[in-house]
């Protein structure tokens, strides 16, 4: 049992095979894509492997501490920022192979022309809790 994050990028991932921006899809293609994602999540709930799924707005703000008595400094968005996270799904599966298999399926979500996007997803294992028996 291990949790994995499937990370989806707006920007920063290697180019997808079917790399057409969403704004250029037909409304039906967008609906089909959204439906695929929903069905995928529902199916994983059915197999007892779904943990959560979230989407992020593309634009955010950079914030940092600016010393005692000062409000935090905000800045950005930075145009040069390479990596922009679009969203994620967290799964809880028995093996790494299963995580790869599911990431592959998610990457097959349909895009322009109703064809799979073949988008690159980043698969990251969660750090687990410490196990009791280690010796």
């Amino acid at each position, binding site marked *: 049992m291990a949790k994995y994050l499937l990370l989806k990028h707006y920007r920063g991932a290697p180019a997808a095979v079917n790399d057409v921006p969403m704004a250029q899809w037909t409304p039906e293609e967008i609906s089909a894509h959204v439906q695929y994602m929903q069905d995928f999540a529902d199916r994983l*709930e*059915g197999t007892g*492997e*779904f*943990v959560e799924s979230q989407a992020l707005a593309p634009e955010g703000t950079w914030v940092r501490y600016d010393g005692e008595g000062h409000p935090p400094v905000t800045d950005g968005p930075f145009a040069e920022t390479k990596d922009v996270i679009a969203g994620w799904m967290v799964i809880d599966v*028995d093996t790494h192979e299963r995580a790869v298999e599911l990431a592959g399926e998610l990457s097959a979500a349909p895009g322009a022309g109703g064809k799979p996007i073949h988008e690159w997803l980043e698969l990251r294992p969660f750090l687990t809790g*410490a196990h*009791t028996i280690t*010796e």
Partner: protein
Amino acid sequence: MSDALVRSLTPSVLGILVRRGADFAAAEDAVQDALIEAVRVWPAELPRDPKGWLVTVAWRRFLDATRADTARRRREDRVDEEPGPGPAPTVDDTLQLYFLCAHPSLTPSSAVALTLRAVGGLTTRQIAQAYLVPEATMAQRISRAKRTVSGVRFDKAGDVATVLRVFYLVFNEGYSGDVDLAAEAIRLTRQLAAVIDHPEVAGLLALMLLHHARRAARTAPDGSLVPLAEQDRGRWDTESIAEGVEILQAALARDRLGEYQAQAAVAALHADAPIAAETDWVQIVEWYDELARLTDSPVVRLNRAVAVGEADGPRAGLAALAALDDALPRHTAVAAYLHERDGDLATAARLYAEAAQKAPNLAERDHLTRQAARLNTRQRR
């Protein structure tokens, strides 16, 4: 009556329902309903015969659910309205439940979930919280597991090793949230030991008790890991150790060694040392040799290298380590430790930092990072 005591009746009540002819999945739901009812009603008035009460309520729930089902599907069911007392449930009925919930056709996570619910009597919500997944996901995992085992014949003897593996997984998960999985695993293993006489069941129970005894000493107040050698042994639970050692000795005396007994023997040798320096590492190496013969596990060979390092010096440990695949988890961490013992602090610091990058969990990563930082700070001075 405590919650744990209520739940200890779960497997035998479920066994009775199945023996009366209820199918496993429906009976399990009914028992779960009855447990929830018991938790609600019993504090006000404890029934004279708690088990009988649970059987009656669970059976009524089962009939109601079956009737509703029947009405919906408009077909006859063969369930008797008022069964007689039926054949008396036997110890074997209860035992079959353990086998069923750990059936080899289930994935480890499904077996764990089903065992915690059908044998442990935990609610789906509690299991979901313990494993940090949504309740809906856990509910599906459990109902799929039930479907998977629905065709398994209930009268066929299973392999106790599969059950023990599931308990081991539960114990090793530790504790997060409301449910103390380590304590739950001990409870379940104790319960199993009461219905089956098997040296490996005893071995696993001893192993759990010996490790559980160190729990208070294992983490610092800030939550960081305290390695065995640095633990305050005065905080070890001597009662738990004494019980674990006694159970282990009785099991070993039967001369049917298995991996859990051997692991427990290692833990017992640690428990036996009043201070870390007095640990009998030579005997521990011998037990790891036994374990390597029994399991062929890479973790065992890695731990053996650590033990060799303690028994025969760090050079010997490094030589033992060199024979192992360096892609093994924790290989780098062990190498770091042995190099430090050997006085090569620069290499040790580098390897600790590298090991931290590969650590599978947060506590271990933080611990290894601290080790690297400690050595780096010392070298700068």
